């Protein structure tokens, strides 16, 4: 059995219930956890991103693939060498106060985890103080999500809190959500804006690579 092909297909097609079994079989036949991730899982998510860019996949398909990938990664985690696939960059992400929408934010969280970042998905309707506490726990990237024009100003409130607390320079702010624009992100003092989950991953990958080159 070509397990690389099988696992790749399982991620792309969102075969969430089967993938843990496939991973177990692949390991039994002598494949390493690392090879499964490098040769099947990561290329599969790259394929999913391509399908999304080409408007063949939309949010439900990408979410299903991402959560399928997550099931696979959870099964492999105990066997992966610590730090081998992880990026030493902690991200705390949440939807701001007054907003319960989380589908886009959850997708960003899953895809960032898949890309190797350490992600704390803090939930929805979050008061600004909770983001500050996340930074005090070690988060270096604060991801803010909002789907309502009425709750968008809350993003600015979070950033202001960090400024008055003297912690703004310690973190990087990444913002997104349907009504959010690059212009709005600039106005509130956010460091980065991402239009979708794939862009969020790209932004943080660039940030991580840039930090690695300039420690």
């Amino acid at each position, binding site marked *: 059995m070509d397990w690389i092909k099988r696992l790749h297909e399982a991620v792309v097609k969102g075969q969430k219930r089967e993938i843990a079994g496939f991973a177990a079989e692949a390991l039994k036949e002598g494949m390493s956890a690392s090879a499964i991730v490098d040769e099947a899982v990561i290329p599969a998510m790259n394929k999913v991103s391509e399908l999304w860019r080409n408007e063949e996949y939309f949010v439900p*398909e990408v979410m299903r693939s991402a959560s399928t990938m997550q099931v696979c990664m959870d099964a492999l985690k105990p066997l992966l060498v610590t730090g081998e696939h992880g990026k030493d960059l902690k991200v705390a992400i949440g939807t701001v106060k007054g907003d319960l929408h989380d589908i886009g934010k959850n997708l960003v969280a899953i895809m960032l985890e898949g890309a190797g970042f350490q992600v704390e998905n803090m939930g929805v309707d979050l008061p600004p103080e909770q983001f500050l506490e996340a930074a005090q726990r070690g988060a270096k990237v604060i991801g803010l999500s909002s789907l309502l024009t009425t709750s968008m*100003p809350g993003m600015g409130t979070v950033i202001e809190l960090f400024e008055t607390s003297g912690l703004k320079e310690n973190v990087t702010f990444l913002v997104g959500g349907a*009504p959010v624009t690059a212009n709005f992100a600039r106005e509130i003092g956010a460091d980065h804006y991402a239009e979708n989950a794939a862009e969020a991953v790209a932004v943080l990958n660039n940030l991580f690579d840039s930090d690695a080159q300039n420690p």
Partner: protein
Amino acid sequence: MEGSFTGKERMEAAFRGEKLDRQPVLLLLGGHYAERAGYTLEQFFTQPEAALETAKITCEELDSDALFVPLNPLMPDAQEAFRKLMGKAPSIKKDNIKEKLPRWSVRLPREDPLFSSHLDMCEKCVEVFPDYHINTMIGGPWSFALELRGANEAMEDLYDDKQFLHDLTKYTTDTVIARCLAVLELGVFPFIGDPSAGMSLISPAVYREHVLPYHQKIVEAVHDKGGGVSFHICGYVDPIFQDLIDLGIDGLSIDGPSSLEKLFELGRGKTTIIGNIDPMLFVEGTPDQLDEEARKCLDIAQGEARYVIGPGCQIPLQANLDNIKAFTQACHKYGAF
């Protein structure tokens, strides 16, 4: 009102495909003029008198042709007011919904306290604003289903339990139909807002399997009663333009990310097209930019009788009122036939 025609006459002409003096204007507004009317936003969202007086001031200030009935718990900006009043963001997500659904029957509109208050406001608006085309936003069946189920859970149901999603959407569709018929009886035009049904969330294939049949049911039910209905889906809907046109809906309102040009190519004269200035321009833009955008949309329309100019979605509450005024004036200036 300016001119010799009322806004109601202009809008009804647009739905019939006839021209009067100019292209009608439809603004999706809420409590934007509450302060000018002497009320807080919380009063606007909860007190009938405050809602009505704000609507009066809005009509006087802007002279648009249509209005949306206020005191509507389904409007996006109402959510913020309810959050402040209740101390938490409102949610209708139900636990154990798969076990509960078979026991649910459709709640009649007058049995729902919040919607019943809204029906009272519908009646009032028809009485107080006879010269305006009165619309009310009714939440669409798909978005309603996702709110009851939870959007994340529903996305998994698309793979693991499609039948449950169909059963749930059938329930929400029956509720939506009941609401549409209730407002129609009062002389108000139902405007279905189904924000989660667009390609900003789901694929065209999912729309066609899980949403289209239910939108069709709503259109048929409304038409059977001799009424008309408009649909609005937020975000990007270009891939399903043809499906929406083929539904036979009377008005199709599109959001900023969708292409007005493409919709005119496919649907000119087949439905009344409504839109689609980017709502955020009313917040971030200038009066000159709004003037230019109005001109661009009217250029694309080329004097089409079945076109109503307006924002792509509800204008955010933090919009600059000068921008709203400038936009409306530009529409009057450039929209003459």
